[in-house]
C-alpha cells in the first residue's frame, strides 16, 4: 500500500448568498498518494477550484460553509485547524499555483524578493539556522530560478513581475510553490492562460520538478488532453460531485460514466473527419443553486433511467482502481 498524502472524505461545501444556497461540493471523496499526480477535470463551475481552496483553507467564509466531511493531511483533519495552524501548513506542507500568475505575484516586489520569502520561511520551519543568512537565501533563489529554466537568474531576480511574459511568471510561481518542498502541490489550471508552445514547456517542468522534490500534485484542468499528458490518475467532476475516477490509461480507454464519455467526444478529434458535427451534450451545466435531484447529470444524460431522478448514485468501484457514480454499473 502506498502512503496517502491527503484524504478528502465526504466533503460538502455550500455558499450561502443573498440569492440562495449554492452547493459547490457534494460528498466529495478524493485521495492522493505519495508522488502521485491526480488530474481533476470538469467544466467551469463544477467545484474543481472550490475543492482546491477547501484543502488550502482559503475558502471565503462566509459565504462558504463546510457542512460535512474531513480533509486528512499527515494524520490530522485540516478542517479542525485554526488560521494560525493552517498558516504553518501552507507553503511547506501544501502549496498552490494558479491560472493567472500575474495576479498571484505582488507587482511591487521583485521576483527575487518574493521567492526569497518562501525560502526564508522554509529555512525557519525546518530549523535550518541560517534563515537570516542572506547569502544562503540568495544562493537558493538563484538555484531555483535555474531549475525552472530561467536564463540569467542573477539579473532575473532584480526584475518585477510585469517585465516578464506569462510563461516566465508561471515558472517563478512553480519555483515558489516547490521551493519549500511541500508534500502536496495544488495546480489550478496552471497552463490555461498560456500558448501551447509555452504550455508544453511548463508541463515538462512540472513533471520533472515534482519528481525531484517528491511532491504529490492535484492538477486541475478543463482540458482532457493536458490531463492525459501529466496525470497518473484522473477524477471527473460534475456539479460538485466526483462522477468517475480511474488510472489515466483506463479512463481514456474505457470511460464508463456517460458524462465522461460525452466530454471526450465533444472535443474535435485529431483524426476525425473535418466539418462533421461534433457530439454535443444537450442543455447546459446546472446552476449550483438548483442542482437536479438524484444524479445531477440525469437531465442531459442519454442513458437516463427512471431511478436517476430520485436516487443519487454513489461512487463505486467497478474494477480495481476504477470508480464510477452511475446506476448503469450498479448491477
Amino acid at each position: 500500500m502506498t502512503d496517502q498524502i491527503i484524504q478528502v472524505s465526504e466533503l460538502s461545501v455550500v455558499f450561502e448568498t443573498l440569492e440562495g444556497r449554492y452547493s459547490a461540493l457534494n460528498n466529495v471523496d478524493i485521495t492522493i498518494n505519495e508522488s502521485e499526480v491526480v488530474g481533476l477535470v470538469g467544466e467551469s463551475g463544477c467545484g474543481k477550484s472550490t475543492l482546491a481552496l477547501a484543502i488550502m483553507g482559503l475558502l471565503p467564509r462566509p459565504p462558504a460553509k463546510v457542512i460535512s466531511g474531513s480533509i486528512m493531511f499527515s494524520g490530522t483533519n485540516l478542517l479542525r485547524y485554526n488560521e494560525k495552524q493552517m498558516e504553518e501548513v501552507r507553503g511547506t506542507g501544501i502549496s498552490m499555483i494558479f491560472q493567472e500568475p500575474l495576479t498571484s505575484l505582488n507587482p511591487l516586489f521583485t521576483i527575487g524578493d518574493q521567492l526569497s520569502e518562501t525560502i526564508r520561511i522554509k529555512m525557519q520551519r525546518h530549523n535550518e539556522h541560517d534563515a537570516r543568512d542572506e547569502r544562503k537565501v540568495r544562493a537558493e533563489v538563484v538555484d531555483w530560478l535555474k531549475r525552472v529554466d530561467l536564463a540569467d537568474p542573477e539579473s532575473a531576480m532584480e526584475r518585477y513581475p510585469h517585465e516578464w511574459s506569462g510563461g516566465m511568471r508561471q515558472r517563478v510561481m512553480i519555483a515558489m510553490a516547490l521551493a519549500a518542498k511541500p508534500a502536496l502541490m495544488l495546480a489550478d489550471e496552471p497552463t490555461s492562460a498560456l500558448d501551447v508552445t509555452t504550455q508544453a514547456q511548463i508541463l515538462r517542468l512540472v513533471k520533472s520538478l515534482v519528481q525531484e522534490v517528491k511532491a504529490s500534485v492535484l492538477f486541475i484542468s478543463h482540458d482532457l488532453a493536458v490531463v492525459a499528458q501529466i496525470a497518473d490518475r484522473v477524477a471527473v467532476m460534475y456539479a460538485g460531485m466526483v462522477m468517475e475516477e480511474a488510472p489515466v490509461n483506463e479512463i481514456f480507454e474505457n470511460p464508463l460514466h456517460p458524462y465522461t464519455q460525452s466530454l471526450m467526444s465533444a472535443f474535435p478529434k485529431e483524426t476525425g473527419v473535418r466539418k462533421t458535427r461534433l457530439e454535443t451534450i444537450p442543455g447546459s451545466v446546472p446552476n449550483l443553486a438548483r442542482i437536479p435531484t438524484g444524479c445531477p447529470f440525469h437531465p442531459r444524460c442519454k442513458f437516463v433511467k427512471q431511478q436517476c431522478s430520485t436516487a443519487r448514485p454513489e461512487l463505486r468501484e467497478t474494477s480495481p482502481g476504477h470508480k464510477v457514480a452511475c446506476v448503469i454499473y450498479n448491477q
Partner: protein
Amino acid sequence: MSNIDLLRLENIVRYFSAKGAMFYSESGVLETGSTIHAVDGVTLKIERNSSLGIVGESGCGKTTLARTILMLIKPTSGKLYFEGREITNLSYGELAKIRPNLQMIFQDPFSSLDPRMRAKAIIAEPLRVVTKDREKITERVREVFEQVGLSADQLNRFPNEFSGGQRQRIAIARALATKPKLVILDEPTSALDASTQAQILNLLLDIQEQYEVSYIFISHNVSVVRHMSDRIAVMYLGKIVEEGPVDELLRKPKHPYTAALISSIPKPNPKTRGEMVEIRGETPSPVNPPSGCRYHPRCPYATELCSKTEPQPQEVENHHLVACHYPLNA
C-alpha cells in the same frame, strides 16, 4: 464573377508606433519610441464559401490582421481587395456600403455585447446601417435569432440573462444579420466550456452550409481550427510562414515552426506522453524582430543564410506555400 476571389490581401503591413511605450529587447535593454511590426507583409486570398484557419501564438499578429481585413484599422501599406475591388483607400461612406458583407465574432461574449441593450437591439444594430425599414429589421432579427438556436421569447432579455454559450449565439446572430459574405471569428470558443464549444462549432458549420459564407477562423487551438477549416495559415511574428490545405499541412508540415507548434499540442491520449517536442526560448519581441528568417534564433535547422536572408513564400506542393530556406519533408 465567380472566379474572382472573395477577398485578397496583397503584402499587407501594419505597424504601430510605440511612442512613450517601453519594451525590453531580447538583450534586456529598455527601448522607447519604437515601431511594433504587428503584421509585416501578408499576402493571402480567401475563396467563396471556404474557411481559412489562422493559427499562431499570442502576439503573432492574428488579431491585428483580422482588424485590418475589416478595415477597422488601416494598413500601413499593402492592398486589400474585396470581390476584385480595392477597398484600401475607400472613403468612410464607400466603405460603409461594403461593411455589411464583412462581419466579426469576438472571443469573449461577456465583453462583446452591450450590457444595457436588449438582445433584439443588439442584433438590430448592424441592420440599421442597411435599411431604415423597421418592420424588415424586426422580421430579420427574429429570423436570425431562431436560426442560431434561441427562442423568440428571449428577444427582450439583456445579455446578463444568458449563459456564455447563448451569448455567443447572440454574437453570431448579430454577425449574420446583414447576410455577410465573410465572417471573421477571433477565438470564438476559447471562453466556452467543452460541451458548449461543440454546440457552437456545430452551429457555425450548419450556418456555413446553409448560407455559403466564408470564415476566417482565428484560434490558437489547432484541433478546433483543423475541424473547421479548408486551409490553414500559420503566423509567426507578423508573417505567414506556411499556408496550405489543412490535412496536408498538419500531416506534413514544411516549416520547422509549424512542425514544432503541432508537436507541442497535447493529445487526449496518455500513450502519447513524452512525444511533445518543445520549442526552446520565448517568442522575440515584434519591436525588433530578428533579421533574416524570424524563426532562426529558435530553429534547430538554422544556418547562416537564415540569419541573413529572409525566405520568401514558395509553392512546394500544390497550393502549399512555405517561407523557409530548408523546408522539411521536401
